[in-house]
């Protein structure tokens, strides 16, 4: 009857096993699960711009390691060589609204609590809650560096020696004092190459890191480097030496502190972590910064589907949650939710990269100008981004302290576009743009990930606009890794791609994108301009903000003129919070900067 021949179903069986696997990993195509893998996975400079803004409230507190590198050197105004900065903040005054519970959601869970082995945003936010991170932090108004765990710092005349005096009242949650020895020990561990710190090279500029005594740290650098203050003060989050020194650094099987930190320095202590389900924290009374935070308990529930997150916010089951851009209108009218919006200083922005290599149509500067004029970027900003973004014309957005408004912006003008093409011998006739040999211009546009609706919309809109000036555009959507492979190829086959960057408050970090050395990895368009590189280097070699602003301003002008990118827009950030949560004050740093002072009022 049903003869199950032995070998006959080996093949279908194999297929079944493969199918088992593939079925469990089919990429979500529905709007319900429109989160790009990029945002779900590990990069903190996620190029999926809209969805990353609200799920991690505390990612904006200055105490996280990755946040630390986005430092402002507007601070350098106070950090000219030979200066001392002392804080007059009284951190012993306790808070007054202690009590209450705060329920957060996140679409992805953290990897671990180890600050030197994780790079994803979720892990950073958990770590930021339990480990107090930085010697200095950013002032929410001026974006200067102000003392944080250090109560004062001094920079020597030569600009190469930095001395930090730590506050003397800081304690670990077990009552042990938090001293410079903890900083020094952690630095030594992090810089040990066998310990696999992914961003080890970021610490390369430090030549010496010593604890002069229990409350004084002295750090020396090799040469003047503008981001130095920010990076040295933020990259090292101290771990409790007295607990960790007897445990293996990187093995979560043998070091329970990695997944379950028992002794912490931050505002919260870990209570329970059920991986991929939820994590609960309780206030730490020994927190050095004004004692226990107001919100006594903080829970994060993992809800991967963003529509469900929004439902939970609406129903009041959680106090904050992701609001999809198309639901923003509705969210603003909800009874129980307040929507906070702000323009972040570290904005994420989108662009279209144009391949500048020889042999490509876009190698010609007139063609690039023509393309820039041919696309209505204002419409993209208004319609695709639903008003939650603003135009961007060059390397730094309006919210950056280096912003230079005096750069060419290529507003929509199809006639000028055609004229630019004409400068290089192209002719627009019979609805077709013809190159000097008489062939119709065809361009290939790639974007990724293929699940990103925003990029898809941008792609088809661009295709439409360019067809109006007779250019045929072929659009290809790629899965994230394939996309990265395509744009980072030594010999790529695309003319244009849609990309995004998360800008940093510290402008110098963006240098690598424009450098010849970074071709083809970060500088995917193969842009070569030695003047721009020299300006970046000059900007990075001084602490004088006026000089830096001038250099970076010039960079913006040159890059906008060369048009290796068609700059599109930078994003607004928003967050929905239940009305019972008080004390929220949006700033360019976000809303999480004073998270410890939030309180609930029923």
């Amino acid at each position, binding site marked *: 009857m*049903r*003869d*199950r021949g*032995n*070998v006959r179903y*080996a093949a279908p*069986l*194999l297929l*079944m*096993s*493969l199918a*088992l*696997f593939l*079925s*469990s*990993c*089919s990429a*979500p195509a*529905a709007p*319900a699960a429109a989160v790009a*893998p990029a945002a*779900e*996975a*590990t*990069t903190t*400079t996620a190029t999926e711009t809209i969805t990353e803004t609200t799920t991690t409230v505390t990612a904006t507190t200055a105490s996280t390691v990755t946040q630390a590198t986005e430092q402002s050197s507007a601070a350098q105004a106070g950090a000219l060589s030979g200066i001392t900065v002392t804080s007059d903040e009284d951190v012993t005054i306790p808070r007054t609204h202690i009590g209450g519970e705060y329920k957060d959601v996140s679409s992805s869970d953290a*990897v*671990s609590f180890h600050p030197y082995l994780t*790079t994803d945003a979720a892990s950073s936010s958990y770590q930021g809650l339990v480990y107090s991170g930085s010697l200095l932090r950013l002032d929410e108004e001026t974006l200067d560096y102000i003392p944080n765990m250090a109560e004062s710092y001094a920079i020597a005349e030569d600009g190469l020696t930095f001395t930090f005096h730590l506050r003397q009242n800081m304690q670990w949650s077990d009552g042990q004092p938090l001293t410079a020895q903890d900083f020094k020990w952690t630095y030594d561990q992090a810089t040990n190459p066998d310990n696999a710190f992914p*961003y080890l*090279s970021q610490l390369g500029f430090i030549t010496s890191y010593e604890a002069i005594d229990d409350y004084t740290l002295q750090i020396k650098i090799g040469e003047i480097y503008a981001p130095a203050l920010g990076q040295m003060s933020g990259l090292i989050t101290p771990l409790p030496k007295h607990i960790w020194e007897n445990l293996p650094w*990187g093995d*979560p*099987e043998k070091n329970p502190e990695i*997944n379950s930190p028992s002794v912490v320095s931050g505002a919260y202590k870990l209570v329970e972590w059920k*991986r*991929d*389900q*939820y994590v*609960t924290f309780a206030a730490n009374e020994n927190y050095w910064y004004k004692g226990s935070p107001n919100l006594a308990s903080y*829970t994060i*529930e*993992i*809800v991967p*589907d963003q529509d*469900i997150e929004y*439902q*939970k916010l609406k*129903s009041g*089951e959680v106090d904050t949650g992701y609001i999809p851009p198309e639901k923003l209108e509705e969210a603003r009218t909800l009874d129980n939710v307040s929507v906070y919006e702000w323009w972040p200083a570290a904005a994420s922005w989108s662009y279209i990269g144009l391949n500048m290599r020889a042999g490509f149509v876009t190698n010609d500067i007139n063609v690039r100008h023509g393309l820039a004029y041919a696309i209505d970027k204002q419409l993209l900003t208004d319609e695709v981004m639903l008003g939650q973004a603003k135009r961007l014309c060059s390397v730094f957005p309006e919210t950056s302290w280096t912003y230079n408004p005096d750069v060419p912006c290529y507003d929509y003008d199809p006639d000028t576009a055609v004229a630019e093409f004409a400068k290089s011998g192209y002719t627009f006739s019979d609805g077709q743009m013809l190159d000097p040999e008489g062939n119709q211009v065809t361009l290939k546009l790639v974007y990724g990930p293929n699940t990103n609706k925003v990029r898809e919309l941008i792609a088809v809109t661009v295709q439409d606009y360019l067809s109006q000036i007779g250019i045929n555009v072929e659009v290809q959507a790629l899965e*994230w*890794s*394939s996309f*990265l492979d395509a744009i980072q190829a030594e010999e790529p086959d695309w003319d244009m791609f849609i990309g995004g*960057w998360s800008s*940093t408050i510290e402008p110098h970090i*963006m240098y*690598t*994108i424009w450098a010849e050395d970074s071709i083809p*990895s970060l500088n995917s368009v193969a842009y070569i301009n030695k003047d721009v590189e020299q300006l970046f280097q000059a900007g990075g070699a001084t602490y004088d903000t006026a000089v830096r602003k001038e250099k970076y301003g010039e960079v913006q002008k040159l890059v906008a003129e060369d048009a290796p990118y068609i700059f599109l827009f930078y994003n607004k950030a928003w967050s929905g919070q239940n009305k019972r949560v008080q004390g929220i004050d949006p700033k360019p740093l976000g809303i999480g900067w004073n998270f410890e002072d939030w309180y609930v009022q029923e």
Partner: protein
Amino acid sequence: MVNSNWLMVSQVANYHLLFTIYHLPFIKTMTRYIIRRSLQSLLLLWIATLIGFSIYQAAPGGPLQFMDDDPRRNAEDLNRLNRLYGLDRTILVEYVSWSFGEDWLPATPFWQSGRCMNDVQNCSRGITRLDFGRSFYFQGESVISLIVERMPATFLLAFTSLVLSAVIGVPLGIISALTRGRWPDNLIRVSTVVINTVPDWWIGLLLLIILGGYLQVVPLSGMQDIGDGSFWDRVHHLLLPAVVSSIGGWIGFSRILRFEMLEVLNQDYVRTARAKGLSQITVIVRHVLRNAMLPFVTSFGSIFLLVLSGSVLFENVFSWPGMGRLAYTAINARDYPLMMALFVIGSFLGILGVLMVDILYSVVDPRVRYDRQRV
């Protein structure tokens, strides 16, 4: 008296002897059969791992791809990490290291990973020694512990959904068979097909938003309320996901039952029973179901294994912390050890399931058994 007892004992002994002699060939062939099939399955499993390994390695990206678009990283960091994790070795060496371990390989960068060369305790021992390795994405956690952490959630959902499939599917099948050709039969057959064409996660999302978001009768996410976790709380959370994921089984169970019942209902012995005057219900229960259960039970086995894979879309919608989500995370992060372990376990369960069903079927159905002897 003594004689009759002795007679009885000797009769029993005789019976046992005859039984063994009668079945000895069967036991011999079954054993040979089982051994042969098991060896074939092992071979199949090995081929599967080879194919899986190659496919994963061939796909673009790798465990360190998170650094690809990060302006803060540089080539030096990448090379250092590649060496540490042994990702710069040739694929063949990586496969050998994964399956047989790297501690016995020569201590050179060509053969061993950096962390193995640093400390011999960090060397992988290979899956043949049941060391599934450490996860890259989860920064060194043992792959097996990660999978085991997620298994209860997936099993719970799979098992409950299977039971519900049967509980709903079986009566539907019975009604279908009994009312064959009339409207209940047609309705059941059409509706099970129609519902099955709609993806389960979509129905799940719809019902979740209606029942959970607007009516608020079921929870919107998770296996339990935070801080709760009592039995009824878990049942409350399990309800909707289990019912929705059982939908796929309704069509299967109801069809099988209907087919078997119809076949058996026309057999002579059923008509005999009815002619004897037994009531409809007695006939069904005693004769029909007992015989219809046979193939049903064996299909149960294979359906169970399909459910175990855990659908990632479904688990996403219900925020269910199962193996499907783990697989999705692993694949996106190109976490090779975790991906391979899930693949091996999935293949193993699949192959084991079919093997078990095969053997069970051979044991239970004598007709198949004797055919096999010739094969």
